[in-house]
């Protein structure tokens, strides 16, 4: 049996310790959470049976029970011999061996050195019960996003604009000539353009080749793209109207951008709406009192009839625009009947009856928009021969001077060669061919050549030859003293190249329609007929801007805005 004084020390506050003592007499002192233990350690961290302290001879021995270890003076052990002054750690408790007082053989002090603490405080310490306690932060993200976006999308692009090197501001095309060979792409101090996030929309297709160089157009900060930026490439763009005759603010003080809006996607940036045109051309006299143009508003509802530009006097090269309703006549000085050439069973030709179609004479010009001019040699001469005498070469289809010179040359050559079988000819001309021409006969020979030339020319310009198709006059100046090289005969054939000078018509895009569908040639007996279809014929297919059952056609389908011959923009 051992008699032991057990003191329990409990720390109440930081400095106050309460002490409770009890005297226990037992075989051994058992430590543990179980109620049967002599030294009861009420803490869930302590096993039911923890350790046993007993006397062996005059020594005190402490021994661990179960699986838990002891800490004797800080050393982990299972069994140890202890003496006063030693400290034994049992879980959260610390047991000190004291000097036994009078009447006892052992004394110990039990202290709870690692209390469990306040449950609520610990629960609160472990738990984060509001978002403010988490790592989420409104302030941090607000600043980070604000500064990040400010830097990437504003500060850097502006810095790049002002720091850009001169080699970046070159146009690949404009400075082509000045660029040294093999210079390649312009150098950049960064692999990407910092202002690329500023693009407000896809650039139009034709401008894509300069899409990477914003500053080609956007030259100065906070200044709209100047006209000069556009005109640097588009040098030859014409004015809409003569700026001297029509100094209209709407035409002169205008920026390219007002009509040509860039960054609107890949479609062309040419205005196609008729409102632009109708704004002025709906009542043009109010804008320009001197105009001769007629008002228009919509192709289907309000468009003036065609006013072809017809030749009224080819001798003075005078043309005039006359409305189709006023029966204009094309005074080309050429006589030609489409009707006679398009007869159903064909025309007489050296090869027999030949059936003609439009395409036998009218062939598309390169590009297909217009037609090649009619050419006498290739289109007419197979039937309409230009001979003036048997065995003589054909006359050239050229100016009257050339015709007369050809005839004179023919007779001169005959006279020089001799052997001409002509009873009226002087002997020198009739002499044996190849013999020398006596000098004394020159006058007679010249007179014969002149006589025959004048007869031949009269025949050539008669209704039998040139006059068959051409209006011929014999009031020309001729040459001084009738010297060779001149003629009194005059022919002036002027066919108008284009009747509709204000509009563009593309034959190539109308190949689905037959020629006769528009041009009533089979009934035309005179070359004075203007074989243009009336506007109504166009309207069979083409409607106004808002047409739903016809081809919607705005002004620029046929008319250009920037016109040539009126000066540059």
């Amino acid at each position, binding site marked *: 049996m051992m008699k032991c004084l057990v003191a329990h020390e409990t720390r109440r506050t930081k400095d106050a310790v309460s002490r409770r003592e009890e005297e226990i007499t037992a075989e051994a002192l058992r430590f543990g*959470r*179980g109620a049967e233990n002599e030294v009861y350690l*009420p803490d*869930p*961290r302590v*096993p*039911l049976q923890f350790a046993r302290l007993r006397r062996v001879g005059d020594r005190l021995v402490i021994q661990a029970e*179960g699986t838990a270890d002891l800490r004797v003076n800080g050393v982990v052990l299972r069994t140890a011999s202890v003496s006063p002054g030693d400290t034994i750690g049992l879980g959260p408790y610390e047991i000190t061996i004291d000097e036994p007082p009078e009447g006892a053989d052992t004394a110990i002090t039990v202290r709870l050195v690692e209390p*469990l603490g*306040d*449950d*609520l405080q*610990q*629960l*609160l310490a*472990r*738990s*984060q*019960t*509001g*978002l403010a*306690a*988490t*790592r*989420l932060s*409104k302030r941090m*993200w*607000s*600043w*980070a*996003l*604000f*500064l*990040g*976006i*400010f830097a990437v*999308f*504003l500060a850097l*692009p*502006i810095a790049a*604009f002002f720091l850009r090197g001169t080699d970046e501001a070159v146009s690949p095309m404009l400075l082509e000539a000045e660029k040294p060979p093999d210079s390649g792409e312009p150098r950049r101090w960064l692999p990407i353009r910092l*202002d690329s*996030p*500023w*693009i*407000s*929309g*896809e650039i139009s297709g034709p401008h894509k080749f300069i899409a990477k160089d*914003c500053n080609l157009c*956007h030259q100065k*900060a*906070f200044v709209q793209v100047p006209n000069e930026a556009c005109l640097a490439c588009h040098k030859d763009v014409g004015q809409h109207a003569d700026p001297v005759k029509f100094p209209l603010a709407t035409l002169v003080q205008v920026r390219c951008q*007002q*009509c040509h*809006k860039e960054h*609107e*996607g890949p479609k062309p*940036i040419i*205005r196609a709406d008729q409102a*632009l045109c109708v704004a002025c051309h709906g009542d043009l006299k109010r804008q320009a009192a001197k105009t001769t143009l007629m008002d228009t508003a919509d192709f289907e509802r309000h468009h003036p009839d065609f006013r072809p530009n017809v030749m009224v006097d080819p001798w003075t090269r005078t043309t005039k625009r006359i409305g189709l309703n006023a029966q204009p006549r094309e005074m080309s000085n050429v006589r030609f009947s489409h009707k006679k050439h398009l007869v159903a069973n064909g025309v007489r030709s050296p090869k027999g009856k030949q059936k003609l179609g439009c395409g036998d004479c009218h062939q598309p010009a390169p590009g297909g928009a217009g037609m090649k001019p009619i050419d006498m040699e290739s289109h007419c001469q197979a039937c309409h021969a230009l001979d003036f005498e048997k065995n003589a070469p054909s006359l050239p289809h050229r100016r009257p001077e050339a015709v007369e010179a050809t005839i004179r040359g023919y007779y001169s050559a005959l006279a020089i060669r001799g052997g001409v079988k002509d009873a009226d000819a002087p002997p020198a001309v009739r002499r044996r061919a190849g013999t020398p021409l006596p000098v004394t006969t020159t006058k007679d020979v010249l007179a014969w050549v002149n006589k025959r030339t004048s007869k031949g020319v009269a025949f050539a310009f008669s209704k039998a030859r040139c006059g068959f198709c051409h209006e011929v006059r014999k009031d020309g100046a001729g040459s001084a003293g009738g010297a060779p090289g001149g003629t009194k005969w005059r022919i002036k054939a002027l066919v108008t190249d284009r009747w509709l000078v204000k509009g563009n018509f593309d034959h190539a895009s109308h190949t689905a329609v037959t020629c006769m569908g528009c041009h009533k040639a089979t009934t035309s007996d005179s070359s004075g007929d203007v074989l243009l279809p009336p506007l109504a014929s166009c309207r069979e297919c083409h409607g106004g801007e808002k047409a739903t059952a016809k081809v919607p056609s705005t002004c620029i389908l046929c008319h250009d805005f920037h016109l040539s011959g009126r000066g540059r923009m």
Partner: protein
Amino acid sequence: MPTDIHEAALVYRGFRYLKLAVLMVVAAVVAYVMHAPMGSPNGGTWLGYTLGGAGALLIVWLAYFGIRKRRYQSGRGLLRGWLSAHVYLGLALIIIVTLHTGFQFGWNIHTLAYALMILVIASGIFGIYAYARYPSLASESSGGMRFDEMLLAIAEIDRECRQASLKLGQEINQEVLRSCQQTRVGGPAYRQLSGTEPDCPTTRALGNVRGLAAQVPAEDAGDVRKLLTLLAKKVELLARARALVQFRALWNIWLYAHIPLSFALLAALLAHIVSVFFYW
């Protein structure tokens, strides 16, 4: 009369700001339909500039609400008016600014600003929903108990559990100790928002103690039953506390998107306006 400031804001002065917002939207739509700009509609026409200017002013003014909200001396009534305007005019922005874009979008600062604005408004709409729904859900699920009362009760149960298990075996004591020392309510944001705690030490302790109860000697059966009752009560209290934390988190989480995105929007808006006129 609704007493909650947020509900009161929605009906403020007979829907005064709802009417104003509808008026602005109708005016913008009518102008957009009537307007026949050159080319396709975009932000650079006179109507585009008008709608964009109106949108920008509204955004700055609505963002000013954030500062305004912090000055409570302006009074509850005034604050209610501001909140009402903030909600309805903010919603009107969707239409006004979409018309300003002319439905032209791309990978650029301009569409970034638009997208941020839509995100700010979307988070705000969730905010309206959150303020309308979660406070009532929270008070329903709390069963009349305040949150700090729940935590106090849990702490009290912890103490009682330890007491009840003192005489019980080591394994049971370990479970109880883990339940007391490792159980938490809430946690990181995702945990708060989910309202659950997978592998909660208390739930595990309840299950394990139940399993161990059979091996306990007959004289300790009373203690085990008491312990099981306590643990079950704690599990139930924890579920309620976590639900409350979840509702409070859901109720506030949108602000963590709304405010940072608003700042992002202000920066993008500034960059949008400056860049448009810088490269005019």
